[in-house]
């Protein structure tokens, strides 16, 4: 099964990517990724919430806003897609994600459209 890990990060985490703590930040992530091996079949690092745009269309009326929709402190910093046997396995992999300690991560199984057809 495929499971997506949505990685929420704090403003401090985003700042650490380029600031004086950048080495420690990236070392953690590199070390973490290296333990996952070929279980990771996809993923990306996202720019901080301020670099994004939110689009809504209601009754044909379009609204385009800067930034993320929710005004929470944490925002989506990236995602990974795991190819695993079970949610248990995905939980074990997610538990050591650096963002689980600083903000939070969420796991979602992908929906297999072919299996539903």
């Amino acid at each position, binding site marked *: 099964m495929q499971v997506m890990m949505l990685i929420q990060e704090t403003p401090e985490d985003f700042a650490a990517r380029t600031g004086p703590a950048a080495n420690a930040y990236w070392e953690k992530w590199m070390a973490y990724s290296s*333990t996952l091996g070929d279980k990771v079949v996809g993923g990306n690092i996202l720019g901080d919430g301020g670099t994004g745009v939110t689009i809504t269309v209601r009754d044909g009326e379009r609204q385009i806003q800067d930034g993320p929709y929710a005004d929470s402190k944490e925002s989506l910093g990236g995602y990974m897609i795991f190819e695993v046997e079970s949610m248990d396995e995905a939980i074990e992999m997610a538990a*050591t994600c650096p963002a689980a300690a*600083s903000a939070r991560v969420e796991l979602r199984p992908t929906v297999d459209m072919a299996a539903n057809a």
Partner: protein
Amino acid sequence: MISVDQEVELAARESYGRLLAWLTSRCGSISLAEDALAEALSAAVKRWPETGVPDNTEAWLLTVARRRLIDEQRRQGRHADAETKLATAEKIRLTIAATEASETPFGAGLPERRLELLFTCAHPDIPDGMRTPLMLQTVLGLTAEQIGSAMMVAPATIGQRLVRVKRRIADKGIPFRIPPDEELPERLAHVLDAVYAAYGVGYDDADDASGAAAGLAGEAIWLAGLLVQLLPDEAEPKGLYALLCLSEARRPARRDDKGRFVPLEEQDTSRWDPALIESGEIALWRAARQQQSGRFQIEASIQSMHAHRARTGVIDWEAIGSAYHLLMNTYPTLGAAIGYAASLGRVGEVAEGLVVLDDLDADRVARYQPYWAVRGWLHAEAGQRIAAVDAYDQAIGLTADDAVREWLLERRALAAGD
């Protein structure tokens, strides 16, 4: 002033396992007993605010729960035609329960049936990974959220698995009893393993701080103490109890004032809990007098040797190494082999330590953090920079605790020579 809700919670904490064990011994079904007890607890939440908290909360809960069991029996009786063979057997047990319900169990206190419950939970027919959760739920009354967080399983999943495993107990007719003498040592080992797993879920190396973060340390020590009390003729429960007390005694020293991780051999011994160390030492001494050797006594003796540093100021790595070697040969676990490898490194036998690690099964150690942390250290001691950095990377990536991760990042930087 504590609220009625807190009174109920307190009564539940103290009595849950005792009441559930007794009810299960009467009706033969953990699920039925749980439902009845859950209803009694919710009745208490509703009624106690109006009537006041009864003097004997346990007797009150038991009376209500027993009445529910009998109601359930009547209900099942009405649907007898549609019942399966199993449910018929259940009904017979319930009939017995109803007859026995007239005996009041409150003369010399509620009869102790928790040992039967513990042995049922750790029965060989129950899958390895489910013994600890079942014990935590039935003996301590922990919720699926609490159990799931400690065992790294989604709460809904653990809930479903617990339901299935209780059905399995009924289907397989796993008896609710203390095993006969000839089976006792093996069966007891399963019980002790399940309690130990509750203490350091996922990390069977007690030297590592991360395991204790699971949050069930207090519950595990309580269960181990209960086993000591219920099985006075057995030495191993005392060994386990000693091991857990000695490990737990060091919790306050695992972080410094700034919240940074401190490894065992560098801990400030004045931060160790002297009362827990004493409890551990006494239990270990009592176990030794029974002259039945065992895995947990050896592990406890290793922790005791570490505890001696508080008095002597030194660590006898030779003696610790011998104890790990004995443990590895008699009760082989990953933790024992890794402990042995580390103690070899401490007495200058770094290459030998690495050989011990090389001999371990690669699949079993792939995601085992203590293995990589010790491996990184041994490579660094041997001056093998690249191998040390690679091993530390694995250890860092497999660490859930931020303080331990920071500490490992420092070790990695030292090993890399930056």
